[in-house]
């Protein structure tokens, strides 16, 4: 779970990974059937988490062999491009990673995925996942994926000493307070709010929408009777415009933007909770900063009590060559043991409510607490509430708005995006 930017390495891997997934090893050894697991977990942390789950899988399923079909590239852009062509040719992997929610909708509508209700019943998953999560990933009563982890999108990261210097007592609770605080920081000459490339603005937009509209109105945006042309929406977009006027110059991606906060150049940054690992991890993969001292966090302004979630999940494609193996993998991915092995390494929390709390420290402990108690809302940028077409239309509208700052036109574009999404 990282950047959306097309990475060079990813482009190269895309072309290099075309074949190489043929079934059956020959060799004459006792038939150990391969299970092809398609993911984009290749970065530090996430690859370790996948390995931990893989070990559990090997222990529980001696007659299956795990085949890692991971495609590099943050946020899975490259992986999804390759996956789409495989599914279109009806040559699916046994199971593949996807963001839980609307991102899978295209596959569901075209009948590429098997419903997993039987698995949910067998493992009694409806009792261990939050009800709202099940509701938000169900399509007409059917569930098509097993969420392995949960990330939180609506997070405000800030630098306590920069806030102190600007005379701000604590993190802002509402959007209005946020704007006041941004103005205060501006007077000190620091960057009030750091931003990265275009997708980080879509990420910022979802937090501002949630904070301005409130949870229920935000969730209603993704239902059939959504009203994107309301005056409340206009107000929310005006807020977005005001907040954008306090941003520093755009950085190449989310990491340099987060780093500006850690280095004391900027006061605030709104980014998902993968930023925590970047702030906190030792210098090989992170900045080695101390939480609550060098950096601190709060729910993004106006969203306390609501958890804007996104989740990586696994699916069961129709016509999977090794269906039994895929189901065995899904059982590991859904299980307590698998989730507790994966998540502490990945820096996320389990979707299950019965996780072993002692494994999750510092931010993750706070996160787990919020997950258990908060209302839920789904992320736009990370594939929960809007399908790919819709999300791309919103991204385009944000990119154009970034240049002309015309709220009325922006809102029209969003109304059109909702209408044309086919969702």
């Amino acid at each position, binding site marked *: 779970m990282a950047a959306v930017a097309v990475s060079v390495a990813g482009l190269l891997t895309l072309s290099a990974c075309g074949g190489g997934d043929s079934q059956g090893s020959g060799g004459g050894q006792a038939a150990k059937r391969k299970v092809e697991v398609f993911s984009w977990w290749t970065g530090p942390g996430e690859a370790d988490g996948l390995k931990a789950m893989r070990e559990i899988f090997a222990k529980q399923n001696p007659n299956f062999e795990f085949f890692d079909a991971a495609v590099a590239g943050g946020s899975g852009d490259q992986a999804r491009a390759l996956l*789409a062509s495989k599914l279109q040719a009806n040559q699916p992997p046994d199971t593949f990673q996807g963001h839980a929610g609307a991102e899978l909708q295209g596959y569901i509508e075209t009948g590429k995925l098997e419903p997993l209700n039987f698995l949910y019943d067998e493992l009694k998953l409806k009792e261990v996942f939050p009800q709202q999560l099940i509701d938000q990933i169900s399509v007409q009563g059917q569930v098509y994926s097993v969420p392995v982890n949960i990330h939180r999108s609506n997070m405000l990261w800030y630098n306590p000493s920069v806030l102190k210097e600007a005379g701000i007592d604590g993190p802002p609770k509402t959007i209005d307070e946020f704007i006041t605080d941004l103005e205060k920081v501006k007077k000190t000459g620091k960057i009030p709010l750091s931003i990265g490339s*275009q997708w980080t603005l879509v990420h910022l937009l979802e937090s501002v929408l949630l904070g301005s509209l409130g949870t229920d109105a935000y969730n209603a945006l993704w239902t059939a009777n959504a009203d994107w042309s309301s005056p409340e929406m206009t107000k929310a977009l005006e807020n977005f415009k005001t907040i954008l006027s306090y941003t520093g110059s755009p950085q190449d991606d989310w990491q340099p933007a987060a780093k500006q906060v850690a280095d004391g150049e900027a006061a605030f940054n709104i980014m998902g909770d993968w930023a925590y690992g970047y702030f906190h991890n030792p210098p090989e993969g992170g900045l080695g900063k101390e939480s609550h001292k060098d950096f601190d966090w709060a729910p993004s302004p106006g969203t306390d009590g609501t958890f804007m979630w996104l989740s990586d999940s696994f699916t069961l494609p129709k016509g999977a060559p090794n269906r039994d193996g895929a189901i065995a993998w899904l059982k590991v991915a859904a299980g307590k043991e698998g989730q507790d092995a994966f998540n502490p390494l990945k820096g996320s929390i389990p979707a299950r409510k019965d996780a072993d709390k002692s494994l999750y420290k510092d931010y993750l402990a706070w996160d787990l607490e919020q997950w258990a108690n908060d209302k839920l809302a789904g992320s736009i940028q990370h594939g929960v509430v809007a399908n790919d077409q819709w999300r791309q239309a919103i991204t385009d509208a944000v990119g154009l708005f970034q240049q002309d700052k015309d709220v009325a036109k922006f809102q029209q574009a969003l109304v059109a995006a909702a209408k044309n999404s086919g969702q």
Partner: protein
Amino acid sequence: MTRVRRWLPGLLLVSPSIILIAIFVYGLLGWNFKLAMTDKHDEIAEIPGNFVGLENFTGIWSEERWGLSVRHAIVFTVVFVGGALVLGWFLAFLMEKGIRAEAGFRAVYLFPMAVSFIATGVVWRWLMNSATGEQAVGLNRLFHYLGLDFLQWQWFRDPDWGMAAMAIPAIWQMSGYIMALFLAGFRGVPEELREAARVDGCGEWGVYRHVVLPMLRPVTLSALIILGHISLKVFDLVVAVSGKQIITDVPATFMWTAVYDSHDPAKGATIASYIVLSVAVFVVPYLIWDARKGKRS
């Protein structure tokens, strides 16, 4: 029988490439145009799409993003082609004046050609970082050290002229090659002609103006076409410098998001068709001109 023997081996020799080109270039081009004229706006669903004529080709002009990406491509092309031609010509001009260690300089100017646009883009992304003032890095930092703070600007993030900045790495990369072309052109001007002009009382500038430059016209045209077609389909450089952002959107990056993010094959094919057509506008007149010239001689 003897006639067959004359042409058959030759045909057999080239037939593999004829077949491959027929399928993979012209066959796929045709397939692309066919797809662009359907309403297959969903990638995964197994629908072939209905024929809709030129609807996609006209409809795309009502999209703001398309207008922007076309404008960007034009700005990029004008700055890149103009810049590389002028700089390449100037370098060749200096070379031609007979400087010392010419071979060394020639190699240095040609080296950037060996670098891929991706690698160039990664380096220039850092050089053209848009931060200014205290946070400046890259070229803006250099301007800061030199006390030229007024020169700091947003580079490719400038809303109006960002694409002109995007052309700088491309100029850096290609001007050496253009220099080599021009240098060969300069060398192809017979010394006798220059002598004759000088005898007729032409100054050094006049020799260039009336003798050398007219003789460079074919070289200039080749250079223009080579640069033009690179420029109109530019993708790798833009992606390496800025990724898929509207601020530097060009038709090729728009095509990429249309196909892989919006899952709209018909729209992607439409954009691809426009790119092919725009390149054809450059290349076809050249081919015709070239063929005519061949016939005359």
